């Protein structure tokens, strides 16, 4: 498939494809959302490198800006918001328990 490129580029292309495949499995198997945000950020950087090695610098630029920065940021912000909601609910339950008996 990649005869015609320099041999080093061929090897790098195969290697990055295998890394991306392994990282995808790693992201799915990480169950805790907080650590998964970091995993998906690294997956985004690997995808950016893959785009770069396959001669698409435009796509690599937007993938790194979005997939490694903006997407994990929004995931972490949503998680922080959910955690604060949980703390508030627990506080509300604790105060109703005090008043009940």
């Amino acid at each position: 498939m990649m005869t015609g490129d320099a041999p080093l580029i061929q090897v790098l292309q195969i290697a990055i494809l295998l890394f991306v495949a392994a990282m995808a499995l790693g992201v799915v198997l990480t169950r805790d959302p907080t650590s998964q945000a970091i995993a998906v950020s690294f997956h985004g950087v690997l995808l950016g490198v893959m785009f770069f090695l396959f001669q698409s610098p435009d796509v690599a630029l937007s993938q790194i800006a979005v997939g490694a920065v903006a997407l994990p940021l929004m995931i972490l912000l949503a998680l922080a918001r959910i955690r604060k909601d949980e703390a508030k609910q627990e506080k509300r339950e604790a105060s109703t328990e005090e008043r009940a008996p």
Partner: protein
Amino acid sequence: MQAVLDHLPYYVAVWIFACGLYGVATSKNLVHLVICLAVLQSSTYVLLLAIGHRKGAIAPFFADRVVGTPATDPVVQALMLTDVVVEATVMALLLALAVQAHKSKGTLDPEKLRSLRG
């Protein structure tokens, strides 16, 4: 061996698709589901990349190269480009939905959120 190498990007694309779909279907947490959806979408990038790749070609930018040297397919790259940015905002919408679901039901488990009661 050469046959596998010939079609390696396609195999990697279907592997990532299968991983992402497995994660979506067996997820116990809405945020985990959204992230697996993002992984699912990255499989389409690998597929598009494989379609537009040309061996030994340069990137389709001719600021410093002579017009006419073989370059990779620009249409496929244009598709991927807009898709990457739009994916992030769709994920943000889904995360907002997850935050709202947690606020009204108190749980992030898709099993418990199944009924549309109340």
